[in-house]
């Protein structure tokens, strides 16, 4: 079947895969970019968002409602997690990795207890195809592309053009200085985490119709999102570029070979990219560079005293 190297349908697969990856990674990227912590419970938050979507479907509500409800559930969960967990680990980024891994397990267990562990299947809000002239293509996947574009635009706008973004960037750049200007850095961190968790919830609601909803579904999404965020490092533009490139690569390799080889594509590309460019794509002069979530200087995750010292 290698006769068909690429066609319009496959090109759209590659684009929509990149868009999906961007949506999946955005919540993780916001938290990593603004708080410099890696939220390994991201996959489980996606799973919770997907269950929110499944519940919407089970109650015969409009499938579109799944998106705002997924966001709301994510934000609410984010609030609880920040207050109970994340806040206590501020300044201990390595321990935050461990704690969020544990949190992911807890969320899986709780969802299993409440909703059972069997697979659930959710209908799409959009079914059928759209005729694009050159190709007829799944309308839902095209909707994901539009959604990703809107998400990118909002993230870019908020970080660069609003006071909120300015405040957030000020806290990252110099927390002490920001505090002297009356910025409540604790509130900034709390809101950041809530928004990041909310975006994970949205991603969950969006992937629910195209996969099986079950408690362990988040793991593969987490891995892909984690890899893309490491490569994007700290810029919204970098995230978009990484997601589009790696998503397309995954889809293309899958098309040429087999899905398993496709599924390791993102991982291998990430390991290579970070070896060559330790700061990922934010080291490149990208058009979206001004959208940097975090200043480029400084190395990531310095081992702080509290983590290392026992």
């Amino acid at each position, binding site marked *: 079947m290698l006769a068909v190297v690429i066609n319009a349908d496959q090109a759209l697969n590659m684009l929509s895969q990149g868009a999906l990856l961007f949506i999946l990674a955005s919540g993780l990227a916001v938290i990593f970019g603004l708080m410099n912590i890696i939220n390994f419970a991201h996959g489980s938050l996606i799973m919770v968002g997907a269950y929110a979507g499944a519940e919407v479907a089970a109650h015969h509500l409009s499938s579109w409602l799944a998106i705002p409800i997924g966001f709301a559930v994510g934000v609410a969960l984010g609030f609880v997690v920040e207050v109970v*967990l994340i806040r206590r680990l501020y300044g201990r980024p390595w*321990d935050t990795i461990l704690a969020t*891994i544990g949190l992911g*397990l807890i969320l899986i267990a709780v969802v*299993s207890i409440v909703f059972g562990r069997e697979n659930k299947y959710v209908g799409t809000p959009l079914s059928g195809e759209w005729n694009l002239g050159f190709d007829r293509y799944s309308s839902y996947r095209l909707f994901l592309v539009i959604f990703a574009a809107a998400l990118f635009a909002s993230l870019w706008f908020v970080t660069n053009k609003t006071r909120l973004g300015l405040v957030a960037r000020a806290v990252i750049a110099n927390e002490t200085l920001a505090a002297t200007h009356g910025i409540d850095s604790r509130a900034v961190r709390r809101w950041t985490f809530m928004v990041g968790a909310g975006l994970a919830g949205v991603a969950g609601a969006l992937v629910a119709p195209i996969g099986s909803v079950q408690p362990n579904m988040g793991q593969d999404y987490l891995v892909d999102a984690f890899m893309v965020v490491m490569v994007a490092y700290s810029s919204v533009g970098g995230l978009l570029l990484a997601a589009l490139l790696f998503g397309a690569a995954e889809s293309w390799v899958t098309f040429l070979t087999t899905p398993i080889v496709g599924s390791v594509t993102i991982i291998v590309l*990430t390991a290579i990219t970070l070896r060559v460019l330790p700061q990922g794509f934010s080291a490149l002069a990208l058009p979206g560079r001004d959208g940097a979530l975090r200043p480029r200087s400084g*190395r990531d995750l310095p*081992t702080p005293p509290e983590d290392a010292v*026992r």
Partner: protein
Amino acid sequence: MTADAARLRLGRLVAARSLAPKLGLLGVGVVAMAIAPSLVSTHYEDLLVQSFIYAIFAISFDLLWGYTGVLSLGHSAFFGVGGYVIGVSATQLGHGTEGIAIGIAGGVAGAVILALAVGWVAFYSRVTPIYIAVITLSLALVLSRLAALTSFTALSDYTGGYNGLSFILTSWPITSWYWLCGIALVVLTVLALVLVRSDFGRVLIGVRDNERRLAYLGYDVPRLKLTVFTLSAAIAALAGAAYASYLDFASPDLLGLTVATNVLIIVSIGGRGTIIGPVVGAIIIGLVGPTVSDRWPEYWQLVLGALFVAIVIFLPRGLWGAITDGAKTLRPLLRRALPAEQPRTRLVPTEWTQPRRARAAEHGASLARFVNLRKSFGSLHVLRGVDLDVRGGEILCVIGPNGAGKSTLINVVTDSRELSDGEIVFDGQRSVGLPPARIARRGVGRTFQGTNLMETYTVGDSLFIAGRRGSIPSLWRRTHDIPLNEEVATLDAATGLADVVDVRVSDLSHGKRQALELSMALALEPQVLLLDEPTAGLTDEERSIVGPLLRELAARGIGIVLVEHDLDFVRAITDRVAVLHQGRVEVVGPVEEVVGSPLVREIYLGVKS
């Protein structure tokens, strides 16, 4: 034995940080292990065998993470490689001695090769610290997915693809496995305890606490990490081989994230950096887990997850850490009731052992030359061409306003990979593009602004490690008599550091920390010493010790570069002064000339004369 002798022995056990209590505990464990098979059902014997194997795996993880500070999120890769290689060997070569021997050796070799490759990629490059987590996670994911690949390649002819490999290696009864794995676990626990308590173990803890500082003391940190990573991978592969052989089965799950997360959780809960904790944790979780989860899988996962999170937040040293910390708070109470024990760590003054390149007669000879040093961060130029030379026997003081590039100067000189452009010559050797450890071993010592120490070291550990100058110490012995050159001994006696050799660095006062910072740099016996504000935060009294000491060092032929703000202090001890301003040396000369010059006033006060 008299009562007094017994009390003395007990006192030693309690007071000394010796192996004895741990060995005693191990004895209890061995006895429990010996009688367990006659008490429990076959089912629990079966679970114990699996727990023992997991405990060995946990030891490998603890050596790497708990002691060396390298977090591998995909350690299952090595475990699984061990399991798969013995499986493939058994199915291809048969179940005889040949199949087993080649299987075990091949698994260990495979894990070692993988670890060397991954470690080389991760440790010998300027990647961010999180990279090791990314690449180990990647390794486990890629291997587990490729192992599950049934189509597309001939790989699955050997691995069995998603089905995995069923193979029957031995027909030993469970009890034989129990003894084999039990004895292996005891031996490995003892070896690991000896290793982590040896002088080499102290170096590893230094890597965990502050690898950067260790590099500036001359230690080849990447090599240390690679060594432990490889050792850990080899042990993990052995555990994996045992696990797969015992279960007669190897599947992609062995390589996957569940196994990787399990060992992380076991070591965290048991207590990272304790060896015993992870072993005990593996056994408890290995027994309780299946018992509970067979009936209530979700609830077991919930409890385990919650326990893991609670321990990460409240007991970072895990359960065993909590128990030993509790024992430590009891120890002074016991000590009061028992005869005092002499501190075991002693400082032994020795001669300065390193060759002194500039002898007294050659004072004034150039030891180091900096030519046109430049350093830029993107479009920000911090150093714009600095020229200086450092002469034996003199103190050269670098002054300048904040942001002039003083600390950057020290940084690029001691880590010349950071240099954007320019030439550095130490003792006639061009020293550009070298990492800190190489420069330190060429005889360049430095201190850090503020302090930059290994916080869980004792003072004695710090001085011992600094005095080794990067050479790898014994893997089994622990040195209690720490050789120390006269200069350091003098300093430590004067500052009172010598009285607190067994105190943890994190418990030291600020003045003592500064003194230790300087002592460590001196213990390196450098030719050139770069000091970044060594008197900041010191009392006048302490400061009055440092000045003469620096003069004394200079008198012995060392070249000292001092970054300092306190102009009175500078006046008192400096030979020459260099004024750094906006990344350039504006003027160099004798102290009186420079300090009084209009230029200095202009730079500091912004007054144009």
